[in-house]
């Protein structure tokens, strides 16, 4: 029995599940853990695709994902949470149920868009594409709904995971693109980390309400 497709779908499903559960998590620690699980699954998916397609590049992708997103970034974020004393911080922007309904709608849209537009493509890529588009949209939704800056960063990173998932499922994607995306994410994380410290220094909070207040007063 050929395990290529079932395993790839399984891992894609786990990644989507992680992205979806991020919507329901109000605490930062849980979101970081979910992100870590998502990144680890992604690296496993990359390894598996590398094995299945016989492409050496994908092993490297998986390794980078594992090191940067699976280990370094969650560690950094946990440190930030510790240092800012936000272990018990709770989001209060939008009811969880409502945001999950929105998430289900987005997944529906992703399926609706991808499946008919790619009728001519191979079945593996089609469903993988639908899953990764859903992950991208869910990450964007997290960025939109959350008020806490770190939660927004996690949403951004999750969006990026969706992109990498699409890239790994697609045979023939050049390795340079994935490498540059990974480096970009690392840099973005560093910049955002510095930025967060500055925000914290000025406003004593990572809640964007503070910035919005300043913005409003400036007008």
């Amino acid at each position, binding site marked *: 029995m050929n395990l290529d497709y079932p395993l790839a779908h399984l891992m894609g499903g786990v990644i989507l599940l992680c992205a979806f559960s991020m919507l329901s998590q109000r605490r930062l620690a849980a979101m970081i853990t979910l992100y870590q699980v998502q990144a680890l699954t992604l690296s496993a998916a990359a390894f598996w695709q590398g094995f299945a397609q016989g492409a050496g590049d994908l092993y490297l992708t998986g390794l980078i994902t594992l090191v940067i997103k699976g280990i370094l970034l969650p560690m950094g974020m946990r440190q930030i949470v510790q240092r800012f004393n936000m272990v018990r911080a709770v989001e209060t922007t939008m009811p969880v149920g409502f945001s999950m309904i929105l998430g289900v709608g*987005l997944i529906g*849209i*992703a399926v*609706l*868009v991808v499946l*008919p*537009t790619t009728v001519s493509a191979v079945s593996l890529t089609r469903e993988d594409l639908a899953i990764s588009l859903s992950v991208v*949209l869910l990450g*964007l*939704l997290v*960025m*939109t709904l959350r*008020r806490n800056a770190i939660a927004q960063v996690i949403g951004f990173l999750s969006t990026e995971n969706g992109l990498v998932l699409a890239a790994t499922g697609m045979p023939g994607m050049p390795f340079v693109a994935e490498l540059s995306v990974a480096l970009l994410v690392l840099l973005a994380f560093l910049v955002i980390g510095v930025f967060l410290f500055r925000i914290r220094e000025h406003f004593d909070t990572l809640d*964007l309400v503070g*910035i*919005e207040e300043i*913005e409003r007063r400036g*007008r």
Partner: protein
Amino acid sequence: MRLPARRLVCYGLGVGNSFALMFGLPGQGMHLRLDALSVLFLCILVPQIVASALAERRGSIAFWVFAGAMVLTLLAGDAFTLIFGFELMSAASWLLVLRGDARPATLYAGMAMFSAACLIPAVFLPAGSLAFMLVLLGAGAKAGLAPLHSWLPRAHPAPPAGVSALMSGGMVKVSLYILIRYAFIEFGAAAQPWWGSVLIAAGAASVLIGALRAMLEVELKTMLACSTVEHAGLIAVGLGIALRAKAMGNLDLASLALQGALLCAVAHGLFKPMLFLGAGAVKKATGTTSLDWLGGLMRGMPRLGMLMLAGAAGMAALPLGPGFAPEFLLLHAVIKAAATGGILARIGFTALLAGLGLSAALALGAVVRLIGIGFLGRPRSLHAAAAGDANRATLAGMGLLAALCVPVALLPGVVLGMMEPVIQLLAPNSAPAPLSYAPLSLFLLLAAAAAAAFFGLRRFAVRGTREVPAWTCGFGSPPAWLPFGDPLTQPSATGFAEPVRRAIARGVLAPQGVDPAEAYLLFPLSQVSLRLTRVAEYIRRSTMRQRLAFVFAALVMFLLALGLSEGG
């Protein structure tokens, strides 16, 4: 895009090829060309320009640009030149309106942009219903056809009188010229009967609302502008009947209606600038144009008063005046049209006939009010009492137009004969019935009768004198403390119009006597614009997360549209 080859017409000035200018669009240039239609409208336009320049505005650059742009529009031989002249005309007239008053200038600029936005795509579209509707919207808005007329009674009175005269008499005609050229010549092959019906409906609405508002307005120049709306409507009714009849193959009716419409354009182009120039002279002499503060001007300004009376006779379409023959022809055309077509068309044309009759009566009332309140009776203010006659230049300008009114009034048959090439150009192979109205012989008969009565009275009347109290213009004898009578006890312009306001205006106008186009079209539009501004302001002031949400929502909408269109 060149206009198609000009038809051969045996009209002295109309012969000649198109004349290419050395500038214009690269590779295409600009072309000037003269055909019978342009010649007719030039003949309408030139006396007004001369009269306005004679009366005032000789040194204004904007005025000459305005006049030149109108001439350029009429002479245009290709679509680009036409649009160029038309927009130059709009811009120059906007400057002139702005010099008078800023608020109507803004409204005017908005309307000019709207008409440009309709006309520019229309002239480059293939002939068809969409192109015709765009031309109708663009040129009709500029000509003051309902429901896009409400800017006209605001913008036309704002600039000085010479410009008002040219705007009312000339600019409206230039817009109608574009309408005629496109409806009858450019899109002539694709014409459909319902185009004419739309034009008739717009024209009938303008006629009614224009005549009604002319009866109610107190400001002299605003009243004249409302009457312009009415006359533009009359011309549009004639053109609509002609367009409909031509599309249905009834060429004789088409030529009859065209005769009425074009003669109406000629007559209106003569008496309306004259009245506007007169209103300007009244304003110069008394400092106001509000009829409620005038009165008795006939004594202070007798020559101006007589000229105004002549123009007013035209405006009211009195027999033996210049305005009668066109209305006579138009009513004939409507009656003829009512005898053709289906039951709905018959009912519609009969109703149109009633509407035209009503508005003719209203126009007569407006003129009686203009002369009776403004020029007869006693002065209602010191300024009106002290008014001296207009200066010679104004009188000369008005006199020129009045002199040109005489052949139109007394020899309409000859004028129609000169128009024959235009009719043949617009409705080929038609044979219009000769005009069954001979004002010259009527005039001679009336003059003979009057002379006979005069001499009879001289010969047979009782000689001798008799002392009677002086006629006090219908007043009671003045009380002792007011030896000259209280002028304010005369009926005012507002009071004179009150019966009409109660009987008709309540049903037609919006509450508080506002123009329905203003209340139901302009006001909601301004509300929508206000609301859109608020939305834009809200988006501009949104927070970071809201902006993210906007972008995200746009993305989701796009995906949804993509998915639905692909999936469906």
